[in-house]
C-alpha cells in the first residue's frame, strides 16, 4: 500500500497522467480544471517532458495530434467551452486512429455557462461532438482515487485501440480533495513500439498518418476498420458498478459525481426501509446497456439522476426499453442535487 495523500481531483488526474507515461501535454487554461494544468506546468519540465501552454484550445488539440502521430503518450485537458473548440481535432484523431487522452472537467453550459459542476457534455462526449462516424471511449470517474485509476486506464485503452479516450469528470470532482494512493508509475521503455508512428523513416518505408481519402470506396474501408474496432471495444471494455442491487425494488442509474452522492442516498433510503440500489456506468461509451437491461428484468423502477436535462437518460431508455419504468430527475446550470433532493425523488417512485 502506498502513502495516502490528500489531493484534488485535478491534481490526481495530472499526476496519474505523468505516471502513465504522458510525454507531451498541451492545454489552454480554463476554470475549473486550472490545477491540472498547473500540476503539469510544474512537473512535466522537471521530468524532462513537454509542457506547452498553447495559444488556444485549437492549437493544443492539434499539438496532441502531432505528438500522437509521433507515437508518444499525450494528453490535453479543458472544460466544456474549451472542449467544444477541440472537437474538430478530436474527430481528426479518431479518423486517423491516433491514441490520445482528453480530459473534460465539465462546467455548466451551454455557451459560456458558468464554472459550477455539470454533466451537460454527455451527448458531446459519447455521441461524437465532432463530425463523422466515430466514437471515443469515455470514462466517468466518481471519486478522486478513481479519477487517477481511470486516467491510467485511459492511456492504456488509447494505445490498445488506437483511439482518443475521454475522461469525463466535472468541476466538483476536479476541485474536491480526498485521500488517494497514487497509482504506480509505468516504465515508459516497456511500452510496445508503435510501428505506425511517424517518428523518422530512416532505414524503413515511410509511415503515413491521415484521416483523408478522396475515393469513397477507400474511405468506406477506413470507416469499416473503425467500426470493427468499436464493436471490439463494445464487446470487451464495458465497465460498471452495482451497489445494493441484489434485493432492490428501485434502482438509481447515475455516473460520476452524482453516483457518489447517490451512494449516500442508498444508505439513507435503506435506513427508512426503502430497498434502493445503484447502477453506475463507469464507461459511458461503450454504455453498459446489456447489464442495465438485465438489471431492469428484476427491478421494475429505474430512476436516472444526472446533472443535465436527461442526456444519459436516453441511453438508459434505449437499454431498458419497456422493461421497467424509467423516470428521470436532473439538475442543470451547475446546481448539484443534494442527497435529500434525490431521496425525495426516490420516494416519489418507490412503492
Amino acid at each position, binding site marked *: 500500500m502506498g502513502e*495516502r495523500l*490528500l489531493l484534488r481531483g485535478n491534481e490526481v488526474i495530472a499526476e496519474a497522467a505523468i505516471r502513465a507515461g504522458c510525454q507531451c501535454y498541451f492545454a489552454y487554461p480554463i*476554470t*475549473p480544471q486550472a490545477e491540472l494544468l498547473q500540476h503539469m506546468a510544474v512537473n512535466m519540465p522537471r521530468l524532462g517532458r513537454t509542457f506547452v501552454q498553447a495559444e488556444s484550445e485549437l492549437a493544443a488539440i492539434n499539438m496532441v495530434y502531432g505528438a500522437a502521430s509521433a507515437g508518444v503518450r499525450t494528453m490535453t485537458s479543458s472544460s466544456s467551452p474549451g472542449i467544444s473548440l477541440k472537437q474538430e481535432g478530436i474527430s481528426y484523431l479518431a479518423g486517423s486512429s491516433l491514441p490520445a487522452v482528453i480530459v473534460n472537467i465539465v462546467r455548466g453550459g451551454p455557451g459560456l455557462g*458558468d*464554472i*459550477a459542476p455539470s454533466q451537460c457534455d454527455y451527448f458531446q462526449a459519447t455521441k461524437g461532438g465532432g463530425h463523422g462516424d466515430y466514437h471515443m471511449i469515455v470514462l466517468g470517474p466518481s471519486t478522486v482515487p478513481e479519477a487517477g485509476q481511470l486516467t491510467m486506464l485511459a492511456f492504456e485503452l488509447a494505445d490498445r485501440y488506437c483511439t482518443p479516450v475521454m475522461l469525463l469528470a466535472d*468541476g*466538483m470532482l476536479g*476541485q*474536491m*480533495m*480526498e*485521500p488517494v494512493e497514487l497509482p504506480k508509475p509505468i516504465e515508459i521503455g516497456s511500452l510496445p513500439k508503435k510501428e505506425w508512428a511517424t517518428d523518422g523513416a530512416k532505414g524503413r518505408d515511410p509511415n503515413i498518418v491521415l484521416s483523408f481519402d478522396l475515393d469513397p470506396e477507400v474511405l468506406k474501408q477506413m470507416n469499416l476498420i473503425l467500426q470493427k474496432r468499436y464493436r471490439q471495444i463494445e464487446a470487451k471494455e464495458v465497465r460498471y458498478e452495482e451497489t445494493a442491487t441484489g434485493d432492490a425494488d428501485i434502482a438509481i442509474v447515475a455516473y460520476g459525481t452524482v453516483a*457518489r*452522492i*447517490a*451512494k*449516500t*442516498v*442508498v*444508505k439513507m433510503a435503506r435506513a427508512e426501509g426503502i430497498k434502493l440500489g445503484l447502477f453506475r456506468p463507469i464507461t459511458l461509451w461503450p454504455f453498459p446497456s446489456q447489464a442495465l437491461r438485465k438489471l431492469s428484468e428484476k427491478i421494475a423502477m429505474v430512476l436516472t439522476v444526472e446533472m443535465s436535462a436527461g442526456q444519459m437518460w436516453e441511453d438508459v431508455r434505449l437499454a431498458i426499453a419497456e422493461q421497467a419504468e424509467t423516470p428521470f430527475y436532473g439538475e442543470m446550470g*451547475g446546481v*448539484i442535487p*443534494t*442527497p*435529500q*433532493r434525490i431521496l425525495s425523488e426516490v420516494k416519489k417512485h418507490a412503492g
Partner: protein
Amino acid sequence: MDNSVVIAGFGGQGVILAGKILAQAGMNHGLEVTWLPSYGPEMRGGTANCTVVLSNDPVGSPIVDSPTGLIALNLPSLDKFEPTVAANGVIIMNSSLIQRRTKRKDVRSFSPALNDLARKAGSEKATNMIALGAYIKVTGIIPLSTVQTAMTQMLKKEGKDKFIPLNKKALQEGYNALHE
C-alpha cells in the same frame, strides 16, 4: 462517526485553509474524508465556504444537506448556513463580528470572540485556527496534536513555514477558549 462541517466566512478569512487542515488531520487520524470548496462567484466578496466530511466509512456525498457542524466567521455565513445545521449539531459563531445570538434552540452554540483571541495569540490572521481549535475541542473528533501536525504539513506544502508557530499557538488558544 459521521461528522460534517461547513466552514464559512469572508474571502480572506482562511476558511478554505482551515477546512484543508481539518481534512488532512482527519485523514492522518485514519478517517475517510472529503473536502469540497465553494469555488464559484461566491469567492468574490460574499461568503467563501468549504465542506469537510469525516467518517469511518468511505464518503459518498461530499455535499451535505444538514451538516453536524458550522463554523461561521461572519454574519452572512451564519445567516446562510444556520438553518441547515442538523439537530443536536454544533455552531461556532464569531462574536467579534456577529452581534446576534443563534435562532436555533436545538443545537449547541458557542460564541467565542475569535478575532480578539487571534489578536491575543499574535495576529488576527489566525482567526481561522482559533475557530478550528475551538471546533475540535467541543466536538472531540480529533486530538489537538493531530490537527497541529496536519497544519504544519499543510503550511509546509504551501511554502508558508514561517506562519507555523503562530498557527500552532492559535489552535491551542482556540482549543483552550471553550469547554466541551
